[in-house]
């Protein structure tokens, strides 16, 4: 259980976030939607430690926690997949999965152990990549997205933040990534999904949280809500 309580963030005169609340729990996919400039990016930056909030607090299981840099977020079990994926195209799948947290003895890479864990991780997510020893540059967009998501799981997090994971993908690959998101939920992870695509949101999320102009503008059980109601909340037409 992770909660954002009354978080505000100002950039000069602009109120990017204004007393925003958000609850995330294990085994649930929460979609965060909103128009451009609604504060989605700022909110995930606050949660992932890229920026610190001016007001409000973050709670883990009811206990206030401090997240002032990405490292702290990671040690709290919060893992972020950025929209640009942050993959090193010249490294192979194994190298990317363990980037920055390579298994090592003294300073020597434990290649065999990493390859074994990488294969175990990918097959547990049911991600099929023919040859994990080729550079990531050789993979398709969906495969890269899957590698980026699998990498987020290497540190054994309990919350995974996905920023527009399907934005650059075709129809078939989008379906595969959505499948992967469902699998994360089935593993008991909390998933925060940022998306512009309401079809994707409807396909995988349990709950939809709408932001508008930096404020909470509605929260819906996705399955019981019509797309029109969500669009109305995003555009403010309902108000």
């Amino acid at each position, binding site marked *: 259980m992770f909660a954002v309580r009354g978080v505000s963030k100002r950039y000069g005169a602009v109120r990017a976030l204004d007393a925003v609340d958000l609850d995330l729990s294990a085994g649930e996919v929460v979609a965060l939607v909103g128009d451009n400039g609604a504060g989605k990016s700022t909110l995930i930056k606050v949660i992932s430690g890229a920026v610190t909030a001016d007001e409000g607090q973050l709670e883990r299981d009811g206990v206030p926690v401090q997240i002032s840099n*990405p*490292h702290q977020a*990671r040690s709290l079990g919060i893992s972020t997949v*950025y929209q640009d*994926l*942050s*993959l*090193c*195209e*010249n*490294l*192979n799948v194994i*190298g990317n999965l363990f*980037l*920055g*947290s*390579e298994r*090592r003895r003294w*300073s*020597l*890479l434990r*290649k*065999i*152990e990493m*390859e*074994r864990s990488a*294969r175990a991780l990918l*097959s547990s997510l*049911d*991600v*099929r*990549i*023919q*040859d994990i020893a*080729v*550079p990531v*540059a*050789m*993979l*398709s967009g*969906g*495969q890269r997205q*899957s590698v980026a998501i699998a990498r987020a799981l290497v540190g054994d997090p309990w919350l995974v933040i996905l920023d527009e994971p399907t934005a650059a993908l075709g129809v*078939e*690959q989008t379906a*595969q990534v959505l*499948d*992967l998101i469902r699998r994360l939920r089935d593993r008991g992870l909390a998933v925060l999904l940022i998306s512009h695509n309401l079809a994707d949101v409807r396909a995988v999320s349990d709950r939809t949280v709408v932001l508008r102009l930096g404020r909470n503008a509605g929260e819906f059980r996705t399955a019981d809500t019509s797309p029109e109601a969500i669009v109305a909340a995003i555009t403010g037409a309902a108000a």
Partner: protein
Amino acid sequence: MTTITKSIRWPGRSTERAVRPGGVGSWPVVGGLVAIAIVFGSLNEQFLSAENLTNLALQLAATGTISLGIIMVLLLGEIDLSAGSVSGLCAAVLAIVHVRHGQSALLAVVIALALAAAIGLVHGLMFTKLRMPSFVVTLAGLIGWQGLLLYVLGRGGTINLPFDGVIARLSDTWLPPWASWLIVVLVVGVVTGNAVLNRRLRRRAELPLQPLLGSVLRITGLAVLLGAAVLVLSADRGVPLLLVIFGALVVALDLVLRNTVFGQWIYAIGGNAEAARRAGIPVTRLRVVAFVLASTLAAFGGLLAASRLAAVNQSSGGSDTLLMAIAAAVIGGVSLFGGRGRPYAALLGILVIQSITNGMLLLNVDSSIRFMVTAVVLAAAVAIDSLSRRGSEQ
């Protein structure tokens, strides 16, 4: 691996093009070397003689070592234009400490290398802290350290190293055949042992194994190549110590880059510095270390050059030293865009360039032609690099 019925099936994408982290690999270079050997060998029977190949081996070491340093920064996607000047300056400092002040050769070498490390540190800090482009930082270095070289050499302009001194003898030391063969046996033995061990560990970890034939062929090829080199060189004066030093540096750097966390991080930064930073890799520190290594290797190359010439003069590390070192790295397959290539590129690339130079000198071809031919080879190598990069990105 367990197969689950409802697994993800990725749409096919051709994986036939073997674009590995080393670009198109070293096959074009090896082909080029064979072509060079055939062309010059048929034009001049001296070219493939044991004596000439021994000279070639001696000529490789200095610029090849500088090229190794260049590779360190190229892997990050940066450039070091100061390597030539730094090699000259540090050789001059070495000569001054050793000859003018009469200190021991070892102390002089240590001081020269320490100076190079300090220069590299300055370059690295200017690049990372002041955020100056590495091109500009090292361009300033190219001019400035050259100036300092002229300044410290003073009016005389040349310092001779004693012919019977340790440093000059470095390039006049030849391994007896038994020592050369011992090295070959040891290297092949270690490579074979490592392959067997790796195979056993992979089998125990239930990982897919490489085809046995490939490993056997690779090791046999290595043994044949090393054996042939020793055979040819021993027919003349023996295997030059200089070549062994250069070879050892190449192998050591390659092992470090491929098997340590440091090496993995260097490649990661070259591939995507922002991703590396987000993953918690100390990007700034590694960049500084790479520049320090580059300058130190450049100084070591300068030391080898001084040893061969038995002197340091105003043109040490000047003229085309730097350009040849960069060209060698690129011809050998190191990408200018960072993150791709291996230290073996220095060996292969300098072999190509030095063969052309050497062959053309034997044919009495004017250096104007030599420059143009080298340019064409360099342009072809970079074109291959760019094409393979575009091919892998699409």
